[in-house]
């Protein structure tokens, strides 16, 4: 954590739309990425956040189960009740693991899916 110095996400009190793109990745750190995306969301205090989108590299071809429950826990807090859309867009050349990724997100973020605000896409 050489570069740890704080981006002060806790100051984003009026944020309405947030997009985070992970441009390339090492599969070894996939779970860490998800964890830190959730931690970023958890720091944002805005009560008017309406849209969140993530662009994430596609999982390895034979992925082991990835859990999104930490993000689910964060997004189910009352301050995210204004959310009208959350998008997960997977990018990459190998589509074979997209089915897994989508199923796991829909399962772990089921409450958001039931609210009709969850989208999972590929490319």
């Amino acid at each position: 954590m050489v570069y740890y110095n704080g981006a002060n996400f806790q100051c984003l009190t009026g944020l309405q739309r947030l997009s985070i793109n992970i441009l390339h990745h090492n599969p070894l750190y996939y779970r860490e990425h998800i964890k830190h995306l959730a931690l970023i969301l958890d720091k944002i205090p805005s009560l008017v956040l309406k849209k969140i989108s993530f662009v994430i590299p596609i999982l390895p071809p034979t992925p082991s189960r990835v859990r999104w429950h930490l993000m689910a826990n964060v997004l189910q807090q009352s301050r995210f009740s204004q959310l009208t859309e959350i998008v997960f867009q997977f990018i990459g050349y190998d589509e074979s693991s997209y089915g897994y990724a989508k199923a796991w997100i829909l399962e772990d973020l089921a409450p958001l899916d039931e609210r009709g605000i969850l989208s999972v896409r590929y490319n």
Partner: protein
Amino acid sequence: MRLTKVLRLLSTHLKPSSLLLGEWPIFDQQTIATLALFPSTERLSLEMHHVAVEDLRYLDTVFVNFPNIRELRMEHCAFENAPYTPDNQVFTPRLRSLEFINCAVMPLLLYFLRRQIVPTNLFSLKCFKPGGIPAVGEYFSRFGDLLQEIQLGFHGVSLSTGNFTLYSAF
């Protein structure tokens, strides 16, 4: 010189709302002056591959010459870490969007911090290096209540050190 003449001729016929300056010869005062020929520009893209501008006041010149600018996109821009004192007489743009792509955020973002330039809509940082995190933190700390939309593009892993770039976001 020929370029300048061409631009002057073009300016009599063209009133562009968008302008992309790629590999612009920014150190030449004469060509900088030609920027003023297109005051209608609302969307400006600056691409400065392979050069690091010595003086942040270059951006003062840009804004003075584009009084109608509303959207600024900067790609591969780097500035020397030289002292900068804002000139309060210089025109301050009212930007809708401010985008940095593959830019050395430090000290670039500090220019916008000191000039108090905050986009009313989109603030975008893509492919910024971890060394820029303190500047981002300072900018969010100062203007976080005004920012409505943020786009962040991370490299998942810092290739040089193995440390997560995402870590540095905290």
